[in-house]
């Protein structure tokens, strides 16, 4: 029998203050990033146009920018894919996206007549549609949160429920902060990934608090923090294994899944790591602090 962790006895609760400090710092930075710098909203939400172009021969970002300037789109976002310098994604945001693709095609055939190119992907979204999608997405997120809150409130004891919800917001804000920091595009697919992370975070919280509740009923004589630690340690190998296998799948997506899915896989990767960390340090940490301030366990 192979075991990665044989009866671990890590005192997570004693280390909770490091977790709190770390998370508090990260929350401040993330919120600052989100509200000051702002997410890099994709054309799904802002409206705009996107072209993915593959050239026969390598071409520099500067040359591409030069052509874009000629059609008055010098401020377009240019993203190079891969190391060969042959494949690019060009994005412009805002009004009247319909004319962008034809103008770019014309200027490219004038500027690079000998460099054959293929347009792998062309997307155009009117700002009006983007706004509708944004409000629809906000509704979807709100409804998802409400349903999860309802589920959590009848499924958990209110302490675990509150802590799980705090952990959930922690994970979402943390992940969004990383996305803003790395300037990844916030597209509709990435929002889908954020919601998946929320589901996963709750999932982890459930497994851990189920076990803590079970231990609580069996270990009536032990201190509350000992119960918490036992629950965390007993589920630790499961946590490590599940996160491990899920991350293996996500890394396979990130490495082999191609450009279309890369942002999605990246978001999941970051979110799952944060979700695992938070269900141990934040969820259990909050519950232990709560118990110390307002004990409910009978001595």
């Amino acid at each position, binding site marked *: *029998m192979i075991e*990665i962790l044989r009866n671990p006895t890590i005192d997570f609760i004693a280390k909770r203050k490091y977790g709190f400090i770390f998370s508090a710092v990260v929350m401040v930075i993330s919120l600052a990033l989100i509200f000051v710098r702002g997410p890099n909203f994709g054309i799904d939400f802002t409206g705009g146009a996107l072209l993915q172009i*593959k050239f026969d021969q390598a071409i520099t970002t500067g040359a591409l920018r030069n052509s874009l300037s000629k059609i008055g789109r010098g401020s377009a976002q240019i993203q190079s894919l891969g190391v060969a310098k042959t494949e690019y994604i060009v994005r412009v945001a805002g009004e009247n996206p*319909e004319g962008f693709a034809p103008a770019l095609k014309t200027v490219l055939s004038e500027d690079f007549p000998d460099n054959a190119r*293929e*347009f*792998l*992907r*062309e*997307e*155009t979204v*009117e700002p*009006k*549609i983007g706004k509708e*999608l944004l409000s*629809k*997405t906000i*509704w*979807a997120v709100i*409804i*998802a949160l409400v*349903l999860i809150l309802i*589920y959590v409130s009848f*499924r958990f004891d209110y302490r675990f429920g509150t802590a799980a919800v705090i952990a959930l917001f922690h994970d979402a804000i943390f992940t969004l902060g990383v996305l803003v920091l790395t300037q990844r595009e916030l597209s*509709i*697919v990435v*929002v*889908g990934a954020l*919601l*998946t992370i929320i*589901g*996963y975070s*709750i*999932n*982890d919280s*459930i*497994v851990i608090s*189920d*076990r803590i509740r079970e231990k609580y009923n069996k270990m009536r004589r032990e201190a509350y923090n000992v119960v918490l630690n036992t629950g965390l340690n*007993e589920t630790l*190998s*499961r946590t490590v*294994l*599940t996160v*491990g*296998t*899920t*991350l*293996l*799948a*996500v890394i*396979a*997506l990130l*490495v*082999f*899944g*191609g450009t*279309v*899915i890369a942002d*999605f896989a990246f978001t999941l990767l970051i979110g799952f790591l944060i979700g695992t960390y938070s269900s141990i340090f934040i969820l259990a940490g909050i519950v232990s602090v709560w118990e110390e301030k307002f004990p409910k366990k009978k001595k």
Partner: protein
Amino acid sequence: MRHIGLRIGIVIVAVLLGIYAIIPTIRLYTEANLPEATKIALAKRAIHLGLDLRGGMHLVLEVDTAGIEEKPDDLRDRAFEIIRNRVDEFGVYEPVIERQSGGRMLVQLPGVDRERAIELIKKVAHLEFRVAADDRMAEVVEKIDQYLQGGDTLAFDQPFSSYIMTVERDPGFDYRDEDSIVAMLSRAREVIPEDIEFVFGPREQSEGREVKRLYLLKTAAELTGEAIRDARHGPNQSGNLQYAGSWEIDLEFKREAARRFASITGKNVNKRLAIVLDNVVQSAPVVTERIPQGRASITGRFTAEQARDLAIVLKAGALPAPLKIVEERTVGPSLGRDSIESGIRAVLIAGAVVALFMLIYYSLSGFVADLALLLNLFFLLAVLSAFRGSLTMPGIAGIALTIGMAVDANVLIFERIREELRIGKTTRTAIDQGFARAWITIFDSNVTTIIIGVILFIFGSGSIKGFALTLTIGLLSNLFTAVFTGKVIFNYFTYKFDVHKLRI
């Protein structure tokens, strides 16, 4: 060992149903040279590839109702019917044309030439037959020159007539001067009689220059596109060397219109009759005699493809109002192919790595987990087939994610069984208790992710629905494969081989 026979039976029946559901998909995507009819029949019971995987275009169109008196709803209905006819005639495999909320329409065309399809859909195709007023050309041009010379019109430094040159016996102008010409005509509006107007030809090459022809036509149309009963494309037969090797569109008029056409041509012998499409003169042949057969043809420098598409739009009729593309997502065929390849590779690698890990970590029991995982993927695809679900790139990501998360159930169960064994329970008791205790947790933890999946499916747009679909189906089938089937396999083998020491 309760009901082991019954439980094995349930698993076998489920697998058989799955095989039945998945066969059309396997046949559709693996058998080459299927007859068209079989293909269509199979497609109705098979997994559908999303546009992001097969390549194609997704368009959301809006009818621009501004400035048109007709009720917007009626306009949209007519536009919808016309677009549907055009797309049907275009002949792509499995097109989607749907009305959406807010009066929009959705058009999805797999694997088409983007520019061509947009031209076909957006073309208003307003066709008119108008008599030319060539005899009044000189007089009107002179009037414009005089008008623009006098008074406050010094903005134009050259007279109108100086822009006009000859393009193969027709008047015309350098296309770079178009803006000046349009400005002059608009300024001199009041000296141009109301019953006639200038209309341009298409941009063309003539003696090394880019030019447009200039026509003076009667304002009133003699006949419009509504007169057309049928339109076909064919090789040019006009005998006009200029169009040799090009294609033409042959029109057949409705009966009443045919009579009118005969009378129009009879009255205008030796005059030119211009065929104007969306305010551009396609051709203006001289009427040599009365044409009683009710046929006409549009000649020009059309390729076979252009002539075919034009015939389609003319037959389907003109759009009552222009269309605006409010959303477009087009994926070229090579990116679609790349996405399928990289998607499948990612799923296979994720599956192989996870399966190998389980086998190493849990030894023989890991094999049961792998079997459950394989069954899960199988049921996922079978359910998608049965409901004709569509598989998108995010959908493939959902499958990969399902592989990672499905193992969670097995990990929960196996860790429990290990614990039970550690405290000295017998193999059989440990298995039973391990499954029983893990079940509540597994059920709970899947529920939240399924909630998210359902919401994404309802509110999500386009390709994200594919993710929600595969993730939700995957997690649901996981409850059956990992928990129910997993336990059946354990029970069966420990019973059959009388296992006393479980390798887990």
